[in-house]
């Protein structure tokens, strides 16, 4: 039998295999690019270099937020040999269980990779890659551990940069950083796991300005994840660039001074430069050292304590606490009344205590006196005229019309809506309009007599301390304001454009002088309610407020600006549960003004009295506090 033909079978078989392989190779190498992508994933690592975050200066060029070097203890599991868990745990000051749990945590935390070709899922964790075992060690800690690391192969140190606050002030305004969440990574490709993001305050609002530009270095890596060489000779590499520094309008001197004055008290201080809208100081008391919330370790250690503290140090009161403004509201009422023409400078109303309680003072026969004496019945009368202008025959319809008109004035003063300063987390406060009362009482079921407590800044009206300070700034400017803001300049650029727009109120500047005169008298004339705010040879204009508080002692509030001509500072001080506005808030405001304008305090007695005062038992719980937050 001749088997020669079988050579063709064999040859055909060979050619078949060769042919199939050629097609397969053509498909794999030329047509299908998933393998190329997979190869890039494996070998070409985009090494991202996160630059140190932008630093922040105060208005005088003092560095108030900077960066500091920390150390991570890294591990490569494949390099770990005969780990003496007991000795290692002892070295890093952990228990054996903690060490073991940490290993488990790292392995699990890496997630999985799904192969698009086979649909199989494998863990991303690789024994040959490096992972941080302990993050954010200080120099002291690492220098204690590092010398012994040679006994523990597979562990080594690595350097990282973190926030540092040379001043321990402004914590709840500056905000803090924390690690990005999964959602944030999905939303913004800038972030990679382990990166930090501004979590609150200025850090959050200016996240994009502060984070800088990441450097990208393409390297070819080995299976051990070591860079072997730079890719394409670094042609596509970019260098990391630290963000331009932010310069705040804040004056760290008075910020720190304000926090000192507010020690052992609850409340806040907001100071604004009226001509620019720059925020000079924003004190929230009680506060905390911002360095407590630097880094994952500190956050996990300190955050729960701060968050459960009954005095709520994390709560940024100047932005989020909504208080009834009390008598300081009378300034705005006077202005609106004059602009509406329902009163003029020389309108007088009797102090009829049967309508609303008042203290003993001579009758206010003009605006100046009304402001000076802070006469409650006077402002009931003013508000009645604003609300009930007898434009409509129906009393209820008339009240609705009047209230909405009043509401529009309020909006123009930046009240009843968020001011939109450059800091995250601001509350709008409450200014009721007709819709608000309709909801409460029903349509045309209310009139002035129903809502009259808002006349004197009680009742439904609520303002944030920032808005209160802005009222002082508006009066200082005689009718306009720049939206209060922190950042004066970003690198060589000025503030964001929205902070260069002048906002005019609906009250013409000609109506302001009588109110300002009243405010002058409040501080400087006998019978004024804030004599304690007086500063030698400087005219401070202010207005006290004493906010009735159903839960406890009255809140003390004071807004002021100084000097009377070309005002340099407008300020609002709110001291919770302390009594009359003139007793506590006014002297604190005057000290702040004096410190800012003169850099030193003449009246040491006044300062001493404030510093030593322990107004609220800040150890105990406080209902008012809780209520404010609930609002």
């Amino acid at each position, binding site marked *: 039998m001749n088997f020669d033909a079988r050579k063709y079978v064999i040859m055909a078989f060979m050619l078949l295999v060769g042919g199939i392989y050629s097609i397969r190779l053509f498909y794999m190498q030329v047509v299908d690019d*998933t393998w190329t992508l997979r190869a890039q994933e494996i070998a070409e690592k985009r090494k991202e270099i996160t630059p140190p975050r932008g630093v922040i200066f105060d208005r005088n060029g003092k560095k108030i937020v900077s960066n500091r070097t920390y150390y991570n203890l890294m591990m490569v599991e494949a390099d770990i040999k005969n780990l003496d868990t007991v000795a290692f745990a002892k070295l890093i000051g952990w228990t054996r269980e903690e060490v073991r749990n940490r290993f488990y945590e790292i392995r699990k935390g890496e997630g999985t990779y799904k192969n698009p070709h086979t649909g199989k899922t494998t863990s991303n964790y690789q024994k040959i890659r490096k992972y941080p075992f302990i993050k954010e060690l200080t120099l002291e800690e690492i220098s204690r551990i590092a010398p012994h690391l040679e006994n523990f192969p597979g562990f080594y140190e690595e350097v990282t940069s973190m926030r540092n606050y040379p001043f321990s002030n402004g914590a709840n305004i500056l905000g803090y950083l924390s690690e990005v969440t999964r959602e944030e990574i999905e939303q913004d490709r800038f972030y990679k796991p382990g990166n930090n993001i501004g979590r609150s305050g200025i850090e959050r609002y200016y996240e994009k300005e502060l984070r800088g530009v990441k450097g990208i270095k393409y390297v070819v890596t080995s299976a051990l994840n070591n860079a072997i060489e730079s890719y394409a000779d670094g042609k596509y590499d970019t260098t990391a660039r630290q963000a331009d520094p932010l310069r705040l309008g804040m004056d760290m001197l008075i910020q720190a001074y304000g926090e000192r004055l507010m020690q052992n008290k609850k409340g806040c201080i907001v100071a604004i430069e009226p001509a620019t809208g720059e925020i000079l100081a924003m004190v929230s008391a009680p506060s905390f050292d911002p360095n407590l919330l630097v880094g994952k370790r500190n956050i996990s250690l300190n955050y729960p304590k701060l968050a459960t503290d009954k005095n709520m140090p994390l709560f940024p009161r100047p932005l989020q606490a909504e208080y009834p403004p009390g008598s300081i509201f009378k300034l705005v009422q006077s202005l609106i009344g004059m602009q509406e023409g329902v009163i003029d400078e020389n309108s007088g109303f009797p102090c009829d205590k049967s309508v609303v309680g008042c203290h003993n003072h001579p009758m206010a026969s003009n605006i100046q006196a009304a402001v000076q004496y802070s006469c409650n019945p006077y402002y009931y009368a003013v508000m009645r005229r604003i609300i009930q202008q007898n434009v409509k025959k129906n009393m209820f319809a008339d009240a609705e019309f009047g209230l909405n008109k009043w509401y529009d004035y309020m909006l123009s003063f930046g009240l009843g809506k968020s001011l939109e300063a450059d800091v995250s987390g601001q509350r709008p406060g409450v200014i009721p309009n007709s819709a608000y009362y309709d909801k409460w009482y029903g349509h045309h079921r209310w009139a002035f007599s129903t809502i009259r407590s808002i006349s004197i800044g009680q009742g439904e009206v609520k303002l944030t301390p920032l808005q209160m300070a802005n009222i002082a700034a508006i009066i200082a400017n005689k009718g306009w304001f720049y939206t209060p803001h922190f950042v004066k300049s970003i690198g060589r650029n000025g503030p964001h454009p929205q902070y260069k727009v002048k906002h005019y109120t609906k009250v013409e500047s000609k109506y302001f002088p009588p109110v300002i005169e009243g405010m002058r008298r409040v501080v400087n004339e006998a019978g004024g309610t804030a004599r304690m705010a007086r500063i030698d040879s400087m005219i401070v204009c202010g207005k006290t407020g004493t906010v009735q508080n159903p839960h406890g002692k009255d809140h003390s509030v004071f807004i002021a600006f100084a000097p009377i001509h070309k005002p340099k500072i407008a300020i609002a001080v709110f001291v919770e549960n302390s009594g009359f506005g003139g007793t506590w808030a006014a002297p604190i405001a005057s000290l702040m003004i004096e410190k800012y304008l003169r850099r030193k305090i003449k009246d040491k007695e006044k300062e001493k009295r404030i510093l030593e005062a322990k107004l609220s038992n800040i150890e105990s719980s406080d209902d008012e506090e809780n209520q404010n937050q609930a609002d």
Partner: protein
Amino acid sequence: MLMLIFGIATVYSVAFNPEHPNIFDFEEKYGKQILWLCVSLFLGLLVFLIDSDIYRKFAFPIYLFVLSLLVLVLFMPPINGARAWIGVGSMGIQPAEFGKIAVSLLLAKYISELSVKQQTIGNVVGAAMILLVPMVLILLQPDAGSFVVFTSFLFVMYREGLTFDPIILAIINSFPGVKMKYTWVGSHFIPILFVAVFLSVITLLLSSVEIDFFFLPFKVSGAMGVIVTLILFAIVALLIIRQFGTKRDRSRGTLIIVLGLILGGGLSFGVGAGFNSLAPHQKVRIELFLGLKEDPNGEDYNRNRAMAAVGSGGLTGKGYNKASVSSVESNHVPESETDFIFCPFAEEWGFLGTIVLIFMYMFMLIRIIVIAERQRAAFNRIYAYCVAMILFYHFAINIGMNIGFAPVIGIPLPFFSYGGSSMMSFSMMMFILLKLDSQRKDVLR
């Protein structure tokens, strides 16, 4: 002719060296490889000096010697879990590599000396025994790769008519009333079996993969992909036959192709469907065997990375010494200088490089068969077929596992992979063939 084969061998060796393009440092692997090449060439020279008749005469002693080495190696300390190496100084040799030559020689001698009436059960069993003894010894090491390579000799037996047909006939004829002279399936049993195994393995490997044929508007998976490919081949083959075949060839060829297509497609479909209907634990076992599933040895990891390396080569490759995934330093692909040598080559030279490589292998294999067919002596022819089939197996399995078509079993790519034993054994194999060929006119048998 001599120079041609020699040239091809050299080209492959040179193509290897660029993967490690440093100086001739004998401490390094490329240096050693050059050393091995020199040793191989020296051995080749030695082979050339010896009269070709010696190989035939001493085939049995050589076989016994290698067998004894294979037994000896079982008492050696294991390296990488297998007792495959016999240490000679700092270097080791793998007896299994030389076992291929020994078996080739003895098989050639045995079959060539058989009487004309070849197709007896005794003869088939005799030839099979020559294979089985070293195969069993190799399996004991264990060395699955070499074991599989030894099955290539079945093709040689097939070519020489020593098929399992007598056995199958005996089974069939044992049924009362059946009296057949030969069965088509029986006589072509081996290639059919291998095509079937090949198709099944590919089908299984691709069972969970979506293939995007550029001419089809939808993606197909596994078995369907294989079937589509088969149809393509069938069309091409039909066109070729129409163009070049005689009328008789045409009708017969068409029949074979259509039949093959139907059977192949059916098999592929059946295997795909059968696999999917298996119980999960059975699936896992098969997947483990094929290296599809992640296992403690991380074979899926290797395959995945090897394929990434090959696939990232693109049309023209990343350029010489620019491999990023499979370079030895990066170590993403393990064994990138031995079993996965194809990776760096494919990554650096791209599709143009790989197609040239495949073409060269094809050319070499066909060339060896042409050489085989021009021999006057049956011994020479059979030996040449052994060489061709061994090289083909290495080629098919090695490249196959680099492109996801074969399970990951460690066998080297001839003349390419680093390793002294394989280098020497392939060289000797070729030189013996060349020697036999050069003396073919002297032999009258």
